[in-house]
């Protein structure tokens, strides 16, 4: 079983588009979308939902006004300014620590488990499974939802004897990215030749090194800026990662996106599509060595 996680650091480098392209090329795999607060992979896959699960994690405080004596104790101990002057709990700010409930002299604060989102198993037209999730707007514990998605994908892969899990990771370097990378087999960094792309690549590479993960780099829109493209290459070699390949800037990509298609489907003969297929072959070879 090999789990490939696609990350980028910076958002919008083409991570999801790239993952969707790999999805059309890899056979016998399970797909997982770990970008849980902006899950877009399924818009390209059009999988039909066959399973839906609630994602319940952590707790949220609630104050029963009938019992509350307005003593102010809870407001005093809450470090997240989550309780208003009229003793209402702001669900967005509450971290569910329980300090208010501990302090409350009348037992007016209850702690129910919080519903933070849902995760789904979908079946694609090619009879393959995809796991994706939706965090409730503004909810917490997104890292744990990522873990739930990956766990489900692994379960399905084991059940069906799939050899590959292809995971679309979230942007950034925070909790969701950490949760996406831990225990993965291989990381693909999708970057772009821009001042921000290079900077963010550095940080996400550092994170991957921290987890001792092998990985390789794809430079998207590579001809946009030669000098930053070169800098990306230097950076990846210097940090001990290999270059999988470069994909040239392709105006047709945004046309394809509007129709929710991958560039491989929309324009199979363009230079970008050629580059993507080459990258796939190289990635496949690399995976055999793991």
């Amino acid at each position, binding site marked *: 079983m090999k789990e490939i996680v696609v990350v980028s650091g910076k958002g919008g480098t083409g991570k999801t588009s790239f993952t969707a392209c790999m999805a059309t090329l890899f056979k016998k795999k399970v797909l997982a979308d770990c970008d849980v607060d902006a899950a877009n992979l399924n818009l390209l896959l059009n999988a039909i939902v066959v399973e839906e699960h609630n994602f319940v*994690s952590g707790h949220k405080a609630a104050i029963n006004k009938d019992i509350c004596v307005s003593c102010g104790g809870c407001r005093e101990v809450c470090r997240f300014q989550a309780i208003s002057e009229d003793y209402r709990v702001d669900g967005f700010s509450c971290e569910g620590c329980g300090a208010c409930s501990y302090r409350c002299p009348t037992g007016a604060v209850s702690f129910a488990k919080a519903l933070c989102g849902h995760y789904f198993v979908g079946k694609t037209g090619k009879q393959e499974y995809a796991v994706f999730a939706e965090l409730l707007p503004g909810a917490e514990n997104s*890292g744990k939802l990522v873990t739930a998605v990956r766990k489900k994908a692994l379960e399905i892969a084991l059940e069906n004897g799939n050899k590959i899990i292809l995971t679309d990771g979230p942007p950034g370097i925070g909790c969701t990215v950490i*949760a996406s990378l*831990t225990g993965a087999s291989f990381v693909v960094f999708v970057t772009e030749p821009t001042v921000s792309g290079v900077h963010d690549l550095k940080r996400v590479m550092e994170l991957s090194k921290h987890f001792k993960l092998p990985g390789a780099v794809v430079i998207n829109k590579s001809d946009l800026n030669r000098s930053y493209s070169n800098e990306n290459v230097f950076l990846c070699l210097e940090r001990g990662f290999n270059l999988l390949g470069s994909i040239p800037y392709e105006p047709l990509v945004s046309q394809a996106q509007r129709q929710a298609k991958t560039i491989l489907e929309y324009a199979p003969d363009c230079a970008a599509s050629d580059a993507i297929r080459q990258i796939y072959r190289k990635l496949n070879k690399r995976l055999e060595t793991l």
Partner: protein
Amino acid sequence: MKIAVTTSGDSLAAPMDSRFGRAAGFLVYDTDTKVLQVVDNAQNLNSAQGAGIQAAQTVAEAGANVVITGHCGPKAFRVLQAAGITVYNCEAATVQEALGLFGEGKLLTASDADVEGHWS
């Protein structure tokens, strides 16, 4: 000496659970009294975060000197180390097999965590 083995069952024939923090439970075998004790880990296994370190605390409270498990993450390893518990990695199928291998001195002590922590 008390030896804790990660498992989902309650007898020597039960299969080993390769996970530590999220194992269903532990069988603690006392080599002096030959008594077998079942320790439940359900509460830790379902917790949102920090399952490993709480499981380590549970094992320490059960008085174990040795833990035999498949994989142990870095945070749990730190707790076990602090509690003076030696960790052995083992891929055996059953608890009995694991105890047997340990008795024959065929298991290696883990000098460090062998898997990355699941951040969750």
